[in-house]
């Protein structure tokens, strides 16, 4: 029995292939499977080709995976447009509409002979069972359900829910189509059974994506203001909050531009409310000046950057990890802002809550570097116990402090000064982008600038000790290492398991805190490391280069990078790691050669 199944489907816009993927994913949730669904479209808003990948499993799904176990092509032309995203391998079961006229031994797949191939009269079955071509996607669901023993109940439940309002006839037609698919599969069994295991206990599952759960985490953290501007692939954060935030006394401002969005958010923070903005790379560039203001005015603010391929418009619907330099270095002036990155839909919740906590605690802008992959893929995940999270609020001056003569930017040991807000009597101060004294008066004194700059750095010192903002897995004293952040961390977690199954002695470091660099955490991790890879989805390998500027890296640690929209597969990470081992061994041999 299988514990993991990767299904890829493609069709033209009207085929409802993405809708089928969504039904399948939702059905996984109701039946207790874990699942991950990624979508991919042509550039048209309507019509054109569309595809999706659904990976379902008994255990949590870490990444979309590599080659497909099942490939579904409603027509080959559209399917082939998604070559890299829907790779067919030697173990793949290929299912396609026989109406394409392609013989099963003449598939347009260069260099690959799939394990099993089914030309199914999908369109004809749809018309026969449901009276319409539109039921092709339901036929596909029936075929998948029949051949792989999955989500029969869940799909039926989903159909009933989805079509409840559309009348009994449409529901009955879809039920017939689904049944027709199941019966076809029963009549044409797979040569090798690929039945999925059933989840042990169904239990409750959540179905969501990175952007929605990020916004939910904001609500959970007490965020009461969002200012932003629509930009792919971050807009769903604003959309979610537009539905929910009012219920909690909050407001959303869809601003006239990116600058006004972050400006309004900063204003709300000045007024004493937790606030956030979300954007993508180009928007981040526009917001940079106001983020500098937040740093010097020491105002809490959460800025989410859902990375996409860049620069400029780049590839708005494709993932890339190429905004880390921007997050770390784009500030004008001498300043540091914490940068955090989630690695999955589920931990986007943790990271966003942490971002609000850091922003409040250190009175600072905090950048959450999500990426398109995490932000827009749907995942079926285990429920999150919100009682394990502490929610931190900014340190306010006490009544006694306000009466004694309040200094907004008081130079304290921790570097954190109690912060007042309008409405607090005696807390009146001048917030400003200009350098200021402890009391908040503008100053041009070099000595005061030095003290205030030092204060704005010092307050982050404890952050460098936050081991809990890193995940370390594998053998503690392993000589081989993987380092990965963002969505690529999920690929590397699976790669780690594959490598260890091959008896490679390897460990993995995943930073949720990307900046400031927690030097101690890296140093301790590097102690046993002789070789390894920093795996990143960018041309330059931003994290690798930042680490090199701040730390002595093990000699055999090297970047494994590629630009966005080119997914990494766990198996190739292991292959590359093996190369790194060979390289290291050659180096050892070289040094052991007797000198002539």
């Amino acid at each position: 029995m299988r514990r993991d199944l990767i299904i890829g489907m493609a069709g033209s816009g009207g085929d409802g292939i993405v809708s089928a993927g969504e039904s399948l994913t939702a059905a996984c949730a109701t039946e207790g499977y874990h699942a991950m669904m990624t979508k991919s479209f042509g550039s048209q808003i309507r019509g054109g080709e569309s595809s999706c990948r659904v990976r379902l499993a008994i255990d949590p799904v870490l990444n979309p995976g590599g080659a497909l176990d099942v490939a579904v092509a409603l027509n080959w032309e559209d399917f082939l447009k998604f070559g890299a995203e829907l790779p067919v391998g030697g173990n793949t079961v290929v299912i396609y509409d026989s109406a394409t006229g392609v013989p099963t031994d003449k598939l347009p797949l260069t260099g690959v002979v799939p394990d099993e191939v089914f030309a199914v009269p999908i369109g004809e079955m749809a018309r026969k069972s449901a009276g319409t071509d539109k039921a092709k996607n339901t036929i596909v669901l029936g075929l998948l359900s029949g051949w792989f023993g999955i989500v029969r109940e869940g799909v039926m439940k989903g159909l009933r829910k989805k079509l409840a309002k559309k009348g009994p006839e449409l529901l009955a037609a879809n039920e017939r189509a689904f049944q027709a698919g199941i019966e076809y599969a029963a009549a044409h069994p797979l040569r090798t059974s690929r039945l999925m295991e059933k989840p042990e206990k169904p239990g409750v599952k959540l179905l969501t994506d990175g952007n929605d759960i990020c916004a939910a985490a904001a609500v959970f953290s007490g965020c009461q203001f969002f200012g932003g501007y629509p930009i792919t692939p971050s807009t769903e954060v604003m959309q979610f909050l537009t539905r929910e935030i009012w219920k909690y006394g909050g407001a959303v401002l869809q601003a006239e531009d990116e600058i006004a969005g972050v400006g309004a958010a900063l204003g709300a923070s000045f007024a004493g409310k937790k606030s956030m903005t979300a954007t993508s790379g180009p928007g981040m560039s526009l917001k940079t000046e106001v983020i500098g203001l937040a740093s010097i005015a020491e105002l809490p603010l959460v800025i989410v950057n859902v990375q996409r391929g860049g620069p400029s418009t780049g590839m708005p619907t494709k993932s890339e990890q190429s905004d880390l330099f921007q997050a770390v270095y784009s500030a004008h002036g001498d300043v540091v802002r914490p940068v955090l990155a989630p690695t999955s839909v589920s931990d986007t919740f943790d990271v966003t809550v942490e971002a609000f906590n850091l922003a409040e605690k250190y009175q600072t802008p905090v950048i959450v570097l999500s990426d398109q992959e995490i932000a827009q893929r749907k995942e079926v995940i285990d429920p999150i116990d919100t009682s394990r999270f502490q929610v931190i609020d900014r340190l306010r001056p006490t009544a006694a402090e306000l009466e004694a003569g309040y200094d907004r930017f008081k130079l304290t040991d921790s570097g954190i000064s109690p912060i007042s807000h309008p409405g607090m009597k005696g807390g009146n101060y001048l917030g400003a982008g200009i350098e200021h004294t402890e009391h908040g008066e503008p100053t041009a004194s070099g000595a005061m600038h030095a003290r205030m700059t030092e204060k704005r750095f010092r307050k982050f010192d404890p952050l460098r000790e936050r081991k809990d903002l890193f995940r370390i897995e594998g053998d503690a004293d392993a000589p081989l290492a993987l380092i990965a952040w963002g969505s690529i961390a999920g690929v590397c977690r699976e790669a780690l398991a594959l490598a260890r199954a091959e008896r490679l002695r390897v460990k993995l470091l995943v930073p949720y805190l990307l900046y400031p660099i927690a030097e101690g955490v890296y140093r301790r991790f590097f102690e046993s490391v002789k070789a390894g890879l920093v795996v990143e989805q960018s041309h330059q390998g931003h994290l690798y280069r930042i680490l090199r500027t701040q730390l002595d890296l093990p000699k055999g640690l090297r970047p494994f990078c590629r630009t966005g929209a080119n997914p990494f597969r766990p198996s190739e990470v292991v292959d590359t790691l093996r190369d790194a081992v060979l390289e290291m061994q050659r180096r050892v041999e070289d040094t052991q050669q007797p000198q002539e």
Partner: protein
Amino acid sequence: MTSLPTFTAKDFKSDLKPIWCPGCGDFGVLQAMYRALAAIGRPSHEIAFISGIGCSSRIPGYTTAYGFNSVHGRALPIAQGIKLARPDLLVLAAGGDGDGFSIGGGHVPHAIRRNADLTYIVMDNQIYGLTKGQLSPTSAKGRKTVTSSYGSLESAVNPLLYVLAYGAPFVAQGTPADMAGLAAIIEEAIRYPGFAFVNVQSPCVTYGEEEQQVKAQKANMKSLASLKHDPTNLLAALDLARAYGTELYTGVFYKNPQPPSTMDGLVRERQNQLALNALPREKILDLFVQK
């Protein structure tokens, strides 16, 4: 029954000494602000006063309100964020003509259409003073400055027409040459329930021209009241506003007698309507439970 606290102008004066040049028009604006705020009678800690960057944008620091001297051109977005987050506060925004009509010009129409209940005071001196005398968006065509050695090739923005055209419900102009009048205008603007715009012809003594100075203004200014202008007449207001740059009218150009709804008011309403449907915060993830 306790009586409401009363305030004098002094209550709004901070300890900071203005850095403005002696004779700067902004001193007069500041005095008028003190008087207006005393007349309004809100305690200083309930006032948020936001500015951008420029000589005039220093003004919040010279008051006892919660001030925010932010970045160039962004006073209005920040002020709106404050008002939407905290409708209970009295929110003021201020800045120069460059701040409001050049770098921040794109924010003005949107602030007007949202109509948050705040007051925006532009200290219009037709020059960039803080950077030492460059062309501003309200500099007259042909004017020679350090960035227009042979005379400006561009027409000036007309701030009054600009905001009237976008539908601002309260539009007025004043000058420190008439302090009492300016204080009254600012007070009326603050009391107006919606986006209120006051253009103050506040002369730059260092880089301004002779005919822009207070002395010349005193000779030239004409109050709209003396012209028997009806401030509820939008077309008459638009007609008078066309004289920006040639005539110095003071007083209220336009005051919508039926104040449109404010965004901060609508935000409150929506919050109240929807609060009943809220899951407890810690249950927010229940929205994603797949049943």
